[in-house]
């Protein structure tokens, strides 16, 4: 494994919870690795599987979707739908040769800044260990 390999991660982060954590981390001493590019979205349920697929096909090494805990959705049920959708997408992508480890769905509330930082750090490390994706 190349030592200099820095995985590219795209994060779709819910505006009502995890985005606050991501935002905060920018100004706090404890931060997450710069490998993630964050896209603020209104709800984890808003994220179209097409966006995820497109990220991978455009060369992302990992995609993180982070939303509110079940029961806490601003729009009542967005994250329940997201959970179903990504559970299945996960399996399809894996089948197509984009390993399960590369797509993560996480529930992180606005008060769990540390958890968010931890998730991004872990995800970056795991992807680095996994190595670059094969061509395509």
């Amino acid at each position: 494994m190349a030592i200099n390999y820095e995985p590219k991660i795209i994060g779709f982060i819910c505006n009502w919870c995890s985005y606050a954590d991501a935002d905060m981390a920018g100004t706090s001493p404890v931060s997450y690795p710069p490998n993630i590019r964050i896209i603020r979205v209104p709800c984890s349920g808003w994220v179209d599987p097409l966006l995820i697929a497109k990220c991978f096909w455009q060369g992302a090494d990992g995609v993180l979707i982070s939303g509110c805990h079940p029961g806490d959705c601003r729009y009542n049920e967005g994250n329940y739908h997201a959970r179903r959708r990504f559970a299945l997408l996960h399996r399809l992508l894996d089948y197509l040769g984009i390993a399960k480890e590369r797509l993560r769905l996480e529930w992180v509330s606005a008060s769990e800044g540390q958890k968010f930082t931890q998730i991004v750090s872990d995800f970056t490390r795991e992807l680095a260990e996994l190595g670059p994706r094969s061509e395509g």
Partner: protein
Amino acid sequence: MDLELIQQIRGLCRDLLKNGEVNCVIGYERASDGLTARPLFVYEPGEVERLIFDDTCTHNLVKYLSDKKGEKIAIVAKPCDSRAINLLLNEGQIKRDTVFIIGVYCPGVVETGWNRKGEALQERCQTCQLLKPVVYDFLAGQAPVRSTEGERYSDILEVESKPEDERRAFWLDHFEPCIRCYACRQICPGCYCPECFVERLDPMWVGIRIAPIENELWQAIRAFHLAGRCISCNECERACPMDIPLSLLNRKLEKEVKELFDFQAGLSPEEQPPFATFNKEEKLGFEE
């Protein structure tokens, strides 16, 4: 050919057309090769003699119901096709009272192509448990006796067992010949969007290049859009001029949807497809 069954269908269609209960019957007739079948639209009672039914009637005619919205239609439906009717009913695409469903007990269909009729039943039929339509107004034929044993997903398990890189290569190889003729979509009863994502310019999801990456994005997302909706008629694979094994993709999702949500598309017109509903308490593998 089961002549009795055919006479039954012809007689019924003649009456339906004569009485004005429907203005068109969608069924099958002999293709120009004199050997296989093709879709037939009958408008006049005098034309019902062209209708046939046999083990070459592989087409899923339900696709055409989306073209004939607002008309009173009778349609010949095998059990798998009838699941597509449920799908369209469930998704509000057709109205039950505008469609007269002539269900037929399924003898299974054989592999066919232009001027070519195989001996064996299609693979999908070999493991299909559904011998009787799930929705119909009239049931034609007699319950067939045939074995439906067999492992439905063995080829999928084989792909799954490959390492990540090999799976990736396997699919890129298979998507490479895709010429993006969109026959898979055009023949699919579940593909009725007025504007398909692949043709959207804004945002442009899939670029104009006909190349493996774009092809795969197209095929993967199309399959995903049909997840929990595909009724496994396998028309897409049959239509594909480049022999892409689309069934490997669609049955993978069928298998996962069954496992995750205990759902099979089109079995009932009422049951909500997996992405239209949820269960608050379910664990789908994300919680630690």
